[in-house]
């Protein structure tokens, strides 16, 4: 119970900081929008091709923005050695991990209502409001899947030289199941699901989330305990 209170305090602190540094957050959002735009240039003004690829482009935009958001979230913690201050407080590292992973998930989830409409417009996808809600739900599962190992790896790489290369290098191959699962599931929502496969892809995403949210919480203790 105590740990839950601390996690809530940490998430509140992160959200407050995110709100104060809105421009930082906005630049990540803008980055996502630019990526979506670039995909349409890469494919060409072929509406059919854009529609087919829409789900993939959307998830790729999320993936690329996530590395920015993740390393940014730890840059703040290192600015005045604030993370060290948190480690000095009577807080279990598990609480630090879940606080950070939760606020990262929330931030990435926030991208959905902005990037999805952009994709709908750019790629001429036909979508109902109900579908949109489904897409955002799936996006949430994907965001949680990216944040779980992402927070763990960002905590390690944030103190290293060339963190910008290392984080994607470690994270991208690991989250292939998240990527495949969410692309497939969102694609099924957008283009129809004649063979009722949406359920199993959602289960895959949820399974990844459950496994990595528990595993990384345990391992995070070892990562931060080797303090500088």
């Amino acid at each position: 119970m105590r740990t839950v209170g601390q996690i809530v305090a940490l998430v509140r602190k992160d959200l407050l900081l995110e709100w104060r540094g809105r421009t930082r957050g906005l630049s990540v959002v803008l980055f996502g929008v630019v990526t979506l735009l670039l995909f349409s240039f890469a494919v060409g003004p072929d509406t059919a091709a854009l529609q087919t690829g829409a789900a993939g482009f959307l998830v790729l935009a999320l993936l690329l923005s996530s590395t920015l958001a993740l390393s940014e979230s730890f840059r703040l913690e290192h600015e005045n050695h604030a993370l060290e201050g948190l480690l000095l407080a009577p807080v279990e590292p598990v609480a630090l991990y879940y606080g950070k992973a939760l606020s990262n998930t929330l931030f990435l989830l926030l991208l959905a209502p902005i990037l999805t409409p952009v994709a709908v417009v750019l790629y001429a996808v036909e979508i109902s409001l109900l579908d949109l809600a489904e897409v955002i739900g799936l996006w949430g599962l994907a965001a949680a899947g990216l944040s779980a190992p992402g927070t763990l790896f960002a905590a390690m790489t944030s103190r290293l030289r060339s963190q910008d290369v290392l984080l994607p290098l470690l994270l991208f191959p690991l989250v292939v199941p998240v990527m495949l699962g969410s692309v497939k599931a969102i694609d099924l929502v957008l283009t129809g699901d004649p063979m009722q496969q949406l359920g199993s892809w959602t289960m895959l995403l949820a399974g990844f989330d459950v496994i990595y949210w528990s595993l990384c919480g345990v391992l995070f203790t070892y990562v931060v305990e080797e303090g500088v």
Partner: protein
Amino acid sequence: MGEAGPAIHCESLGRRFGRRWVLAHVDLTVERAESLLLAGANGSGKTTLLRVLAGLSRPSAGSVRILGSDPHSERLTCRRSLSMVSHRAYLYDGLTAIEMLRVWARLCERSISDAELDGLLEEVALIDHRDLAVGGFSSGMRKRLTFLRTRIENPDILLLDEPLAALDTAGMDLVEAWIEREVARGTTVVVASHAIPRMSRICKRALLLEDGQIAWEGPAAGLPAQLERQG
């Protein structure tokens, strides 16, 4: 539980950074309610010793016990009884002074009302900056705010790394009075400082570090003479 042990106990403690031993062969016992002054030139290992005691740095050799507990395996027990002020501010530039205090209070599971927090800010003359972002604070103001953290934590053991650095005269007097009060209250205090005259008045015992090893140990009153003899 470590109810029986002394406040701090180290045995042949050593810490290595790369190929350099920053601390070596440190045997140290600090009894409860004792006050200890750590002296030594820059790079003699004072900060590292404090960081190892605080559990921020793992010893490369030897062992540390805080109130009989290991800072790493019995993490929460140690953190609850220990507080540290260092030259690192541990602040978030985006938060205001009062928000920073609220975060600390919540993390330490202390329910402290805003009125009480205002009182604390008043004490360190920061009440006028209550709702300003910490990012705009001068280093002296940051330091004052950092002290309030230990006030909230209300520890049994207080580790202070250069508590007087970056402060103006008023700030130094403030901190000095506060440390004196803590010592009088029975808090175990370990201070690393270059302000020997000020600090040796407060502390009973002193310890001189040289190249990471204990070079001299004795009553704090004898430290100035010792330093003079050294040249």
